[in-house]
């Protein structure tokens, strides 16, 4: 659940972003290419978006792996107990350290991916 939602959100966001930036570059007199810096910013925002989306799953996973896991009978029960006893905000515990790690990492990954695939495309002449 966690991993599936993560990758799905990330790629959806990044593709949307690329289209927007292309259009922006063209209206500002450039051609349709997206710069490395723009790709990095896109990757960082994609990391941000997916981390926000799946933090609740990460909290539930950690709780069910902890020493008080016996408090919860299932994944669903863990979700509802956290919301009932601690409020919705508790599902966002640990968000800041996760963001500090994921955001720069994803920025670099997406920038490298775009640079490498452009390089291959040029080399192949397509």
């Amino acid at each position: 659940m966690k991993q599936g939602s993560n990758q799905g959100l990330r790629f959806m966001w990044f593709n949307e972003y690329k289209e927007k930036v292309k259009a922006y570059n063209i209206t500002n007199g450039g051609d349709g290419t997206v710069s490395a810096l723009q790709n990095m910013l896109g990757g960082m925002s994609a990391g941000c978006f997916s981390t926000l989306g799946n933090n609740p799953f990460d909290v539930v996973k950690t709780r069910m792996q902890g020493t008080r896991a016996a408090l919860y009978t299932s994944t669903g029960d863990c979700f509802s107990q956290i919301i009932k006893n601690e409020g919705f905000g508790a599902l966002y515990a640990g968000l800041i350290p996760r963001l500090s790690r994921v955001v720069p990492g994803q920025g670099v990954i997406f920038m490298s991916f775009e640079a490498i695939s452009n390089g291959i495309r040029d080399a192949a002449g397509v």
Partner: protein
Amino acid sequence: MWPLEFIKTQLQLGSKTNPLPYTGMVSGLQYTVKTNGFLGLYRGLAPTLIGSIPKAGIRFGLNAEIKGMLKDKDGNLTPAKNFAAGLGAGVMEALIIVVPVETVKTKCIDMDKPFIEGLKTILKNEGVAGVYQVRVHSLHDTRDTD
């Protein structure tokens, strides 16, 4: 990067039944260094590092094994069968390695105990079941990066 994983786990474990002596990332990191020393930030790293060694071995070994079983008599493999071999290896990797490693990591951080001592405590209190929690979640979580 590990101190961020450490403090994330601590903040997520904090609740009314398990109140934390700090409220955020920075104060949590400072508190840990003050009470347990700098190395306290690396609690839980040992099981994760040790677990990552057999992880890659199982992934690639099983992938080759399943491919061998799915090949037709000419030794060819369709893309679908290739995908199945990858999926099978990933699922087995999660079941055999990722779930126990993640669970031992989280419990070592929770109990503030080093790897071997933590593992002994888990086995004594909960038996083997104590290292096999949340199968459903971690099945999708073989990357173990965030």
